[in-house]
């Protein structure tokens, strides 16, 4: 049904009008929340990369701190376990001189929406400024951003299968650092696309930043329906998919995919989609290898590739701090209204 037939503003119409951006961006197009890459203009993504660039040397200084967020309180609200992501967020916040509160809230079956909202209300009462949220359900960060008071900023640290925008941005940062640009690159994402928030955010970031082509490589069981609508090419055969690829991004294969008839065995998966020196030789001569970690050696990637000279995996980890500092300071910087207006 055409949008113009609806006099009420439908979700579709809202989307056309850039409604998505009004949640993430202020009217001045400054970052307010960072929930998903989808819908953000290229200029904002480039801003994040440029800002991260200025922070990338902070870690090498004798005093690894800048006073940008002094006096601000940032809460790491992790409803799903994660050591690495939480740690880099914590380091990023501390290097910005913010106070950090880590909360690991288990998502037992009884944890429902109400208690999530109750948790938020309690934290608001402690006068926090920013929530960094990880949750096992898609849309959790949107939900929190929509229900939090005006002055609180929300950074999505991963929600279900939906989005992991800071991971995608640190990958973009690493790619730019290595190649200096995006336009000529072919990028392949290999593995469990269906269950991967990382892949979804990477796809949006890569297409927004204008790479030459994005490919996804996986068996049909691990490719979500109509993924082509995101602007990617689908391959089921790895050697074919890697042809002329500059960046090979390997995804972590969760052990639970072996049940539920997604895959027959880790052996067959590694045989078809595991990245080996041999398979990598079919990619572009300058190809690099990335992985959001933690890696399963011998499941999706051979050790010699993971530790090889083409691997940027550890650099991704280092860059994660600078990118998260950039996102946090940008989101907080757009905050101007005094707290009393709550």
């Amino acid at each position, binding site marked *: *049904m055409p949008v113009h037939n609806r006099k009420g503003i439908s*979700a579709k119409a*809202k989307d056309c009008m850039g409604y998505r951006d009004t949640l993430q961006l202020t009217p001045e197009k400054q970052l307010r929340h960072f929930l998903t890459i989808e819908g953000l203009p290229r200029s904002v993504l480039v801003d994040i990369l440029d800002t991260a660039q200025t922070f990338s040397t902070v870690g090498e200084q004798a005093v690894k701190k800048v006073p940008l967020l002094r006096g601000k309180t940032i809460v790491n609200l992790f409803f799903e376990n994660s050591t690495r992501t939480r740690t880099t967020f914590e380091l990023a916040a501390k290097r910005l001189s913010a106070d950090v509160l880590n909360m690991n809230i288990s998502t037992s079956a009884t944890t429902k929406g109400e208690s999530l909202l109750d948790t938020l209300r309690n934290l608001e009462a402690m006068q926090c400024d920013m929530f960094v949220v990880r*949750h096992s359900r898609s849309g959790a960060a949107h*939900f929190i951003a929509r229900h939090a008071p005006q002055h609180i900023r929300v950074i999505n640290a991963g929600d*279900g299968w939906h989005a992991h925008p800071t991971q995608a941005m640190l990958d973009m940062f690493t790619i730019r650092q290595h190649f200096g640009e995006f336009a000529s690159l072919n990028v392949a994402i290999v593995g469990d696309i269906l269950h991967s928030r990382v892949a979804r955010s990477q796809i949006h970031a890569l297409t927004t930043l204008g790479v030459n082509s994005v490919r996804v490589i996986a068996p049909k069981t691990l490719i979500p*329906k109509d993924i082509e609508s*995101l602007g990617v090419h689908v391959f089921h055969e790895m050697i074919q998919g890697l042809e002329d690829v500059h960046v090979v991004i390997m995804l972590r294969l969760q052990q639970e995919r072996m049940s539920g008839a997604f895959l027959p065995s880790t052996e067959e998966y590694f045989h078809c989609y595991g990245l080996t020196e041999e398979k990598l030789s079919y990619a572009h001569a300058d190809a690099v290898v990335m992985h959001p970690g933690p890696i399963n050696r011998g499941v999706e990637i051979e050790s010699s590739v993971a530790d090889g000279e083409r691997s940027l995996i550890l650099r991704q980890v280092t860059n994660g701090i600078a990118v998260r500092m950039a996102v946090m300071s940008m989101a907080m910087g757009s905050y101007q209204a005094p707290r009393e207006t709550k």
Partner: protein
Amino acid sequence: MRLHIRGGHLVDAKNQQDGICDVFIADGKVVGLGQAPHGFSADRLIDAQGLVVMPGIVDLCARLREPGFENKATIASETAAAAKGGVTTICCPPDTIPIVDTPAVVELITQRAQQAGKARVVTLGAMTRGLEGQQICEMLALKNAGCVGVSNALRAVKDTLVMRRALEYAASHNMTVFIFSEDPWLRRSGGAHEGPVSTRLGLSGIPEIAETIAVARDLALVEATGARAHFCHLSTEKAVRMVARAQHDGLPVTADATIYHLHLNEMDLMDFNVDCHVKPPLRSQRDQAGLVAGLADGVISAVCSDHQPHELDAKLGPFSETESGMSTIEMLLPLGLRLVHDKKLSLAQLVASLTFQPSQILGLDLGHLSLDAVADICIFDPEKPWLCKKSELLSAGKNTAFDSWEFNGQVQETILAGQSVYQAIKN
């Protein structure tokens, strides 16, 4: 109470009435059409000039939440909302707590509805005990208690043999089986149509084949058992075509669509709109168009509200943690009129799909305004503009995706068996 409804545009699908005609009512029945019966004097004159007079709406599926979910809504609150929406007969699915698998629960619901007095409430009995899909219910006892059919509500009967026997047994007692066809394995934990939107949002998808495979199975069972079946809430274009084919082959099957599947599609889920978390899921634009076309050409013969009021908390959370369902009963007619306004449907077709045809599916002598018929009437202003606001819904459930939609057409008065049960505030 004797009523004279004067000067209204009477639309009655059964009698093919579509023009100005006065209606005279006495003792809860229609006693005169066009001309007053001899010696009739009205206690009350209703001026219906410029208004449409139609039989009261027969809603094939609305949940009143009582018994068992009184925190969401009650029979009293929802029948009042129904009256405001011009609905005079409501058919409830059996998934209350306790489940409608014994005559006692039927009696309880009937009694509560009579106390509330705002709408006629009938129920479907459970097809299997506890809706567990294992042991068939005492269908005859349920029928004798007043159930107009049997159904397993939104729960699939996984075991094909149990489904076959349930259909055979229902056919033996001449009961219509109301089937919501969905393959439970293909649905799994899905909450959204499997397509570009579920892929973007990272939501577990329910594929189209979850519906078509189940409809195919159930149509084959209907053919084999000779049961009379009604397919509830079709959501895919392909399923509409399958039902059309079965009807063409002479199978005794009917189908309905919900009013919101005719107006919304998967795109409305963007940004995690939890009010669009419904079952079956909102599907593609093509499916939406296929449902509207199926309604226009008669394959789908009824439109229901599939009203599901929720308390606020039920919709507070990340998409997949929220409960499915939408509060719709007050928007059923205005949304239907929008289809007429958009020239997808004639007014007569809309009225037929809201009144006479659903009442035939239920086997009730309602939904028409013949002489001597029960005087269930809905009078509406076809042009009156109004803005839908969640907060102004009479239903206890404010969970609607139609908040801030503008409508043309509003119910002015609802009459149940000759008694006025709702009147719009005149302004």
